[in-house]
Structures are given as structure tokens and as C-alpha cells.
């Protein structure tokens, strides 16, 4: 009871203090229907539990603002990679140990929806989110951020030779032995890149993705287990210690090289090939059976607020879903959001994932 009163008074204070500028302080929750539910409900729970993957990172100050505005503390529960986290949600469907899940991406989305893990919630914040990011018409999964898995190259290595412009360039003899990719069977950027090749060289074309990968293999592509080994171990650009000048990474990696440089850099040592990028969209949702659905709804509203959204690029290296959120300067100067990123419908991905991965393994590994 005391927690509720405290929450209420903080809310009243926040509402009056923020006054007309509610959006600037991430005040979306104060205008949402969820708040009234939270304050009128009889649940005394003061904690919202957020189940997420290991890469989730948000500033303490941002979460404090959520607590100040709603009275709910956020407890972050990290539980491995995105796929493992979704499995945990599926295994505990209906009897979850958290209220909100974050980090289900479009390659796994239909699995989450088919397993009835999430309940619908239409956040008012969706008004500022572009339609192409909103993949669930029933509002069970709310898009929070997105990123593009793109080829990155080491600028220094491409003086005489031009950097690749398309995926097809990579099978040319000039690029032999230069590419490192992640194994799609163990890595999510690896899977995204495989999907990019499937979208570019579809099944019904003369030259299919199977032909493409056979050619990549003949051109001495290196396959590593995951992003860390590919980028830090095999890639030659930026913070990489290897000798391969082209790597599958993210559109945000060049800005990250500047932001996380040891010594300040004038410009990024790496650059992005803006053709052949695959779009990853990360979603949040309220878990069915959540102990604190009111807090969960408020948290999703907050995650779409500009305050939270503008915290995303510098911590998770993804782009905010909210179109009104500003990007850091490094993101504007050193990379570009690909104009026409590739996508494949989540249901198609889910239906074919296993077969595609098996075929890929046969073509590239055996």
C-alpha cells in the first residue's frame, strides 16, 4: 500500500513538474491508459521484471527516470543469447518469471507468436514508429529498435582495389580469401547474412543462393562460430586483429569504432557496404501471465519514449524505432541506414530455417 501511495505521489509530482513537455522527459507513460490501471489496480508490486539477452544495455539514469515517473523499479534479467531467451519464455509460457521480454527479433518473431508467449498491448508510442517496423498486426510484439547486418570493410586494405559494392562482387577472384562470415547455425548476424543472400539470390532465380555460397566457398570464405571471433579475431579493420579485410557485421560498427576507440579518431577505420544488408528488428512484449501487467505496459511505453530510444544507439548499437528520436553524430557521419534493406517474412523464415541451415552446412562446410 505504501508503495502504491509513493508511486502515486511521484506520478503526480512528475506530471506537474514535467507539465507541457511530457515527451521530452520520456513522459509517454503519463499520458497512456496504462498508468490509470497501474494506480487503480490492487497489485502492490513495485517491480517490473525485464527478461532480455546478454547484449541489453541501458543507462542507469534512464531507468531511474522510469522509476521516478511510475514508481516501478525495473529488474533486468539477462539470460543468454536472444534465441535462448525466447526458448526460456516459451518453456515458461503462461507461468513466466518476468513481465516483459525484450530482444525477440524478426527471425524468431513468428516462433514467439505461434507459441502464445505474448499478450496484445497497443502502446500509444507506436504512433511514432514507421509502419514497416510493425510486423505484428495484433500488437503482441512491439518494435523497439532495428539494425542492419551489412558487410564491413577495412578502409586501409582497399587502396588499389575497390571495396565490394554488392554481394555478387564477393565471388570475383579479386576478393578471394578476403571475406570472413559467421556460421548461421550458431550466430545471429551469421543467420541474417544467410537470409540476405537468400533474399538476393532467391530459390527461383537462375543463380540461387546455393550457387552463390558454393562460389563463396571456392573463393575461400572463412566461417567462424560467432561475431566476436569474426570481428576481433579474423577481421583486419578497426579493432580486429586478423588478416581478412571484409567481415559480416552491422551498419553501426563503423560509428562504434569511433565511439569506442582508444585514442580519438578523425574518421572510422572501417566502412559499410550498403547493398545486401539484412534488417533485424528487435521487439518487446508483455509475457502472458505476467505478475505485473500494468508495470509491463508502462515499461513498453517507456521503451518507445524518446528518452529511452535515444539511449539505444550508444549502448546497443541499434537504431531507435521511434522516428522522432535523435541519433548521435557518429551515426550520422560514419554510416548510413541502407535505403533498401533486405527482409524476409518472419513466417517464411521460421518455416524454412532448419532446411536452409542444413543446406548451407552441406554446401559450405562438407
Amino acid at each position, binding site marked *: 500500500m505504501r508503495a502504491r501511495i509513493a508511486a502515486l505521489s511521484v506520478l503526480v509530482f512528475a506530471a506537474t513538474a514535467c507539465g507541457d513537455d511530457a515527451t521530452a522527459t520520456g513522459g509517454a507513460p503519463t499520458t497512456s491508459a496504462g498508468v490509470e490501471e497501474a494506480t487503480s489496480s490492487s497489485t502492490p508490486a513495485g517491480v517490473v521484471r525485464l527478461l532480455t539477452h546478454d547484449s541489453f544495455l541501458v543507462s542507469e539514469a534512464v531507468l531511474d527516470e522510469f522509476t521516478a515517473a511510475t514508481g516501478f523499479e525495473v529488474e533486468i534479467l539477462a*539470460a543468454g543469447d536472444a534465441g535462448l531467451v525466447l526458448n526460456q519464455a516459451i518453456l515458461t509460457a503462461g507461468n513466466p518469471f518476468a513481465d516483459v521480454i525484450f530482444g525477440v527479433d524478426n527471425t524468431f518473431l513468428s516462433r514467439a507468436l505461434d507459441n502464445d508467449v505474448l499478450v496484445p498491448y497497443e502502446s500509444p508510442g507506436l504512433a511514432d514508429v514507421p509502419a514497416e517496423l510493425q510486423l505484428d498486426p495484433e500488437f503482441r510484439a512491439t518494435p523497439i529498435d532495428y539494425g542492419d547486418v551489412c558487410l564491413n570493410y577495412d578502409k586501409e586494405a582497399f587502396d588499389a582495389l575497390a571495396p565490394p559494392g554488392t554481394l555478387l562482387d564477393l565471388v570475383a577472384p579479386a576478393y578471394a580469401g578476403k571475406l570472413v562470415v559467421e556460421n548461421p547455425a550458431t550466430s545471429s548476424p551469421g543467420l541474417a547474412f544467410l537470409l540476405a543472400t537468400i533474399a538476393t539470390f532467391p530459390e527461383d532465380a537462375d543463380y540461387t543462393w546455393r550457387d552463390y555460397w558454393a562460389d563463396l566457398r571456392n573463393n575461400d570464405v572463412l566461417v567462424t562460430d560467432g561475431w566476436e571471433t569474426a570481428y576481433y579475431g579474423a577481421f583486419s579493420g578497426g579493432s580486429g586483429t586478423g588478416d581478412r579485410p571484409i567481415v559480416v557485421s552491422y551498419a553501426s560498427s563503423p560509428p562504434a569504432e569511433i565511439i569506442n576507440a582508444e585514442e580519438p579518431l578523425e574518421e572510422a577505420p572501417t566502412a559499410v557496404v550498403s547493398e545486401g544488408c539484412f534488417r533485424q528488428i528487435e521487439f518487446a512484449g508483455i509475457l502472458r501471465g505476467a505478475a505485473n501487467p500494468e508495470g509491463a505496459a508502462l515499461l513498453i511505453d517507456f521503451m518507445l519514449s524518446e528518452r529511452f530510444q535515444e539511449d539505444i544507439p550508444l549502448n546497443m548499437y541499434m537504431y531507435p524505432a521511434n522516428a522522432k528520436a535523435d541519433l548521435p553524430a557518429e551515426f550520422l557521419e560514419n554510416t548510413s541506414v541502407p535505403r533498401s534493406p533486405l527482409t524476409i517474412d518472419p513466417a517464411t523464415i521460421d518455416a524454412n530455417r532448419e532446411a536452409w541451415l542444413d543446406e548451407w552446412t552441406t554446401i559450405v562446410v562438407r
Partner: protein
Amino acid sequence: MDDNSGAVRRFSWAIAALAAIPLAFLAMFFIWPVASIIFTSLSPGGRFDFTSLREVLTNADLLGVAWFTLWQAAASTVLTLIVALPGAYVFARYDFPGKRFLRAAATVPFVLPTVVVGTAFLALVGSNGLLGVDLDGTIWAILAAHVFFNYAVVLRTVGGLWSHLDPALEEAARSLGASRWRAFTGVTLPLLRPAIAAAASIVFLFTFTSFGVVLILGGPGLATLEVEIYRQAKQLLDLPTAAVLAIIQMIGVTAILTAYSRYQERSAVEQGLRPAAEVATRPRTRGQRALVAGVLASMALLLGGPIAVLVERSLHGEAGYGFGFYRDLGEGTRTGAQIADPIKAISNSASFAVVATGIALLVGLCAAAVIARRRGRLSRWFDALLMLPLGTSAVTIGFGFLVALDAPIDLRASWILIPLAHALVAVPFVVRSVVPVMRSVRQRLREAAAVLGAPPHRVWREIDLPIVARATAVGAGFAFAVSLGEFGATSLVARPQTSQTLPLAIYRFLGQPGAFNFGRAMAMSVILMIVTAISIFLIERFRTPGLGTF
């Protein structure tokens, strides 16, 4: 139990009571969770579905994975024994400056995160490697890494017993005309067999469930069951297949373990153990000195090489050498988000390790006392059951906690799961370190004490405890190190971000782009090494007079 006196019958009751603690622990935190997750995965609609079982058993690729898992583990075990036994001998028989420190330091590789070691190995034996050979993607890289990780298991387990063997036995054989080799194979080796078998069983289990090493160094072409289970769970979200593979993994482990304990029982020899201090001498002859030097040099290359790469990388910034990465470990991102809190990570890791070691000692010592005294099939199964968690995939244990531990108290998001998962893996180390020594304690001493009217707990306290105290310290050191380094299960249990451990912090830095974060991951790894070496060193210092008492 070879005779039927009343004292012996009283023993049986004591043994049953002792067995209850480990059994309850395993039932609650291993059997129930693992059974739950396997049943849940294989019966999606509440009814058992055999399709995945059939699919796996007819899939040549998956069967190939099972076969590879088995033979690479066998090869790794043999190779580790060959490489590490001379080390165990030198550490048992000779005194040299810095010995205690080196023994603690040799344990460091054991706790290092595989991703970090993997990149260090690639720097040495990958393409453009410093050593000039490219082993990347080959079985040789995997075997070398397995020796690197498990050297300490042999050094400590076998060395522990070897340092108490009475050299007079071998000397007697020599004076009767046996060659050095004959004296070793005819006298010393049979006496060491229990410890060698114990070490081999642990190395086998560790490499049987090898994950990061195979994932990183094996390339996409080589996979163990552990890697395949992870792949099925993470990328394919195919839990039924993962569950079938987990069953195959556990059946394989159980078969090996029961064969092992049958052997172990037969090979145990009661013998008079000697205090270590009486046994070890300074190397005197030129040959002895050469042997000690040779072993230390090979350790420096094999264990020191990858470690040196890590240390160098943690110190080498763009502006030259310095402690910048260490100083800035706790620095937040520009918006103030903290990737890791080094002090908190150290204190979390240490606290979890204390709790996990405490649990592992309680469970492991009770279990060891039972196994050492009971013979027969029941005891063999009990022993195998205790070892089984070491041979069970992290995914199975992590997901098992999730589906089983929601009632009566919902532990699914509690920090306590972390030390519990660590303890499951640590118990076998306590058992394996202690049982060979306990078995070697002369039964006659115990019987004499019992006949003289000492109640069982007093026999245990005054005969067994002092003798096993040294072995217990070895086991405790292992348990502590296992906990400090554990990553797989830790990362899979849903844990509050505030309970970040050192390995989790390292992975956190590695998952973030940029040279600054890579350097900080290396610095964090070096801190983990230092924390480990210090802990082992302290635990080993804590010794009771032990064997000096008889």
C-alpha cells in the same frame, strides 16, 4: 564390508545418513530439473512424442557428431595424461623454488573463458600465428586447447597422491635389480592407478562436453554433442532434438562412468601413505635437474604461451604499453551505461565461489565417505550419478532449473541458482580428489578404532579427516576455480544484471564493438586469472598437519 561385527552394522546406518545429503541435493537440483526439461521438450502436447528420437537416430550427421564427441574426448584424455604426468611426478617428488606458486598458477588455464583462450590460441597457432603453424579448424587445435585447460586436473589429482607415495617401495624394487622403468611400471604405476583413473575420468567428462573450444577452434565442420545441443536450442529453437541429444550425451557419460567406477574399485590398493614433506627432495643429480627444468619449460610454453598473449593484449594499447584498459574497466558509455563494474564482478564471483565451494564440500565429502566405504553396484551407480552433472550440457541444466524450480519457492530468477549450478559441476572434483586417498587409508586403522569403541563419527574425525584434509584442500581449490570460471550454465540462468560474474563481464565487453572494449575484455581476463591464482594459493596454504600425524 568383509566382516559382520556390530561396529560394521552401525557403519551402515551412518553411511545411509551420509548418503542422504548428496542424494537430496542431486534429486532437487539435478534429477528433477533435468527430468522435467527432457519430459517437457519431448511431450509438447502432454503426450510423449517419439518422432525426434527417430529423427536423431537416423540422422547420419548427428550420429557423426556423437562419434566425434566420443573419440576426441578419448584422444584428449590420453594426450593430457601423457603431457601432464611428468609434471605430476616432478611436482610430487622434487622441491624447487616457487613450486607452490607454480602449482597454483597451473590451475589458471582451467578457469579461463574459452572465447578468450580461443582467440589467444588463434594468435599462436592460427593463420599468421606466432608459432608459424596454422592449426585453425583442425583437431590438433582442439586437442592442444584441451591439454591446456586440463593440465592442472592431472597435475593436482595425480600429483596429490604421488606426493604421498612412499619412495622406499620403488627404491626397494630398484635395489632388487629392477630397472627404473620396471620399478615405475611394476610398483609406482599400480599404486597411482586410482588417481590416474580419477583424473582421466574428469578430463574425459570435461572434453566430452567441450563447448567453446570446439566452437571456436573447430571451425564449422567439427561439433560435439554439447555444441549441437546449443545450436539446436539457440538457432533452431528445436528443443525436442536438443533433448534427444542430451539423453544420448547422458547415456554415453553414464556408460563411461560406471565402467570407470568398476575399474576404480578393483584397482584401489591400501597402502601406507607418507607425509609429502618427507617424500619431496631437492633435485640433486644432473639428470634430476634436467628433468625438472624440462617439465617447467614445457609448462611455460604450453600454459604460459596463451596466457602471455592475453596479458600482452591487456597491456598493449594504441599509445603503447600501460594500464589504461584496467583503469577504465568501470567506465560507462557516453550515456552513462556501465558495461561492467569490475569491483562488483570480483566480489560477486568470489561470493558465488564461496557458496558453491561450501555446498560442494558438504555434498562431496559426504558422498566420498560413502563411496570409499561401500562396495558394489549401488555404490557404483551413486558415484556415476554424482559425476553426471559434469557430463550434462549447460543448456539442459539451465533450462531444467527454469521448468522445475518454480514451486514451492520460485527460484527461477534468483541469484542462488548460480552457485547451485556451480556446485553441481564442482562436487565431482571434491569426490575425485578425496575418494582415492580415503580408499587408500588402511581399513585396519578404522577397524581398530571401531573395535576400541570409537563411535563412527569419531573414527571419521580422528582417522579419516586428518588424512583426507589435504585432498580436501585440493578438491576445494578445484571447486572454487570451477565456480570462478563457470560460464555456460551461469549465462543460461536468468539472473539479475547486478549479479554479473567475472566471466560474464568478459563476454559483455567482447560482445561490444571497438578496440577499447576488446582491450578491457583482455584486462578483465587477466583479473580473473589473478583472482584464481590467489584463491588457489590461499586454499592450498590452509592445511592441517594431515599425513604428518601417522
